[in-house]
């Protein structure tokens, strides 16, 4: 019993990180159709901001979260204005442009903050552990899980119940018609991109105490996050939630029997096979394209 619970908790922890990272990617891709390959770099920048604020200004991680969200969102806003908005009708080129931006960001960080690994302290109030049904789990991991679910819920509510969300849904269905009804789609795209970037930054800050922080950390996250989005089906926030849970638990289980690398490889093979037969993703409702 202990084993089952702790295994589930390990999986949930992996799932919550996947969800945090994939959420921003899913929002941006779902609304604007842009695959943001610089997403991993937003995550990395968020982690570096956490490190910088903590080591230079002595801020606790929890206190800096809001600042980090705003900083990275502002950066996302700038990138949308400078580059992305010129490429909305060339989807393949957005991959290239964001990839180029990602590489530049990595190199800038390497040149300024240095290439060595950095570490961020866990907030002292959350550094203990909690007993759940006989198994123990770190309080911080549970906190990350709660934040991930909270962010998901907030995003879902914005999407579902606010007038801005309604506009977003209209644009997603048909940008031209939505625009002719007076919805400012350019502004909506910009806000979406900034919001997605901000969430990525937040994800990076939250992950930073669990992993070491390095300029290259973003690459693996963006690949994992994309797997989540593919499996969950685009334009389906609930799909993103479900597939990060499935992927997190599966990777946790596979990693227990072999190791992280083999688990990752098996998950990828499974995803490639699944999309062969269900290209629209596991959880996407059938809609007319």
């Amino acid at each position, binding site marked *: 019993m202990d084993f089952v619970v702790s295994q589930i908790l390990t999986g949930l922890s992996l799932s919550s990180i996947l969800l945090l990272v994939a959420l921003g990617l899913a929002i941006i891709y779902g609304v604007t159709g842009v695959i943001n390959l610089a997403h991993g770099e937003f995550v990395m920048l968020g982690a570096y901001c956490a490190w910088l604020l903590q080591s230079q200004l002595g801020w606790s991680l929890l206190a800096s979260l809001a600042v980090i969200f705003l900083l990275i969102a502002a950066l996302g806003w700038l990138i949308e204005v400078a580059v992305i908005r010129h490429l909305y009708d060339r989807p393949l*080129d957005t991959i290239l*442009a964001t990839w*180029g931006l990602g*590489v530049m960001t990595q*190199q800038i960080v390497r040149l300024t903050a240095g290439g060595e690994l950095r570490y961020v302290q866990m907030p002292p109030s959350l550094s203990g552990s909690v007993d759940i049904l006989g198994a123990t789990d770190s309080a911080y991991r549970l906190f990350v899980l709660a934040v991930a679910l909270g962010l998901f819920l907030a995003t879902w509510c914005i999407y579902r119940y606010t007038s801005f969300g309604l506009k977003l849904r209209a644009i997603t269905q048909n940008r031209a018609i939505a625009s002719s009804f007076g919805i400012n789609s350019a502004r909506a795209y910009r806000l979406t991109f900034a919001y997605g970037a901000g969430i990525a930054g937040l994800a990076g800050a939250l992950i930073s105490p669990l992993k070491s922080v390095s300029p290259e950390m973003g690459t693996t996250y963006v690949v994992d996050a994309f797997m989540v989005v*593919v499996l969950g089906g685009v334009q389906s926030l609930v799909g993103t939630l479900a597939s990060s849970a499935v992927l997190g638990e599966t990777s946790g289980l596979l990693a227990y029997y072999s190791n992280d690398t083999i688990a990752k490889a098996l998950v990828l093979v499974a995803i490639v*096979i699944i999309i*062969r037969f269900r290209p629209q993703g596991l959880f996407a409702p059938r809609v007319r394209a």
Partner: protein
Amino acid sequence: MSGKVSRQILLYGVVCLAILIVPVLVDDAFLLNKYARYLIFGMLAIALSLSWGYAGILNLGQATTFGLGSYCMAMFLKLKTVPIHTGSDGLPDFMVWNNVTELPWIWVPFHSMPIALLAGILVPALFAALLGWFMFGGRIAGVYAAIITLAAMVVVNLIIIDQQSYTGGFNGITDLARFEIFGLTFDAYSASTYYLVAICLTVTLFLALAVSRSKTGLILQAVRDQEERVRFFGYDVALYKTFVFALSAAIAGLAGMLYTIIMEFASPTFLGVPLSLSIVIWVAVGGRQSLLGAMLGAVLVTGVQGALSETEAFLETWTLVMGGLFVLIVLFMPKGLAGAFEALVRRFPKAERKGGARHATEQTSKSQPHLGGAL
């Protein structure tokens, strides 16, 4: 049309000839080794241009197949090293360090040269064909396909690093024998190896040109521009795409084998994200819809990189400059240098520029003879 074709073949021929006479003019083994490396990158660019420029499949993991080819060659050459470098019973040294007692079954066929050479081309091709069958059969296209190729590369890379006792892990496979065939020895620093690379490049370039000009090539370009329409005509789109994906992988595999000969080792960095990104940049700079342009783009960019990296200041900022240049090219010059050159050559360059990339590609498909331009 036929006049244009012969002009194109002439141009390609002249460039290849120029590449082949380099060793006559340059008598420096170190430089020849460097130039041969640039030419191998040129082959990689041709491979990507075939799948990306002609069939619209953006392969962000082109280095996967390159690395697979490179490892095939390295495994063969490792087994040929003189016993000093290998452990007991002819085991490669790194296996001895990892307490492997018997040659793994996957290594056994690499004692034979024909099998190893075939494997260097067929393993990448089969890998790509399998991945392609899953992707294109599931009608995965565009951005999705691009990311899956990237993910596949990241995973293959992780596996190679993880399986240290079979692949040498992080360090890769080092201390290799020289490549020998038909009594000829190919020293990495020699004119003969340069010729080997140059000839392979020439053959590849003309093979790719022939494919792009064949009926299959035309169908692929049609798929790139209007996939649905081609499907409605009754063509098996997935089959065509899988074919060109595998062909491109085979070319990359060949390039990988040559790279091992030139570098005298194989390493997991050969199938890393940075190299893959570089390949995409070279092709974007040179012009994705021109085989020669893509190849020259690779030679040009790596050549400049090689020259600049000798000065200390540029070594670190190079990546930054490259990334910036790449973003600018994607934004303002989607057809790369080849496109700019064509626009210059043509009498009315205005018509080309107007309306950005989307219109430009559509124009390409509409005015087919335009592809018969010089590049």
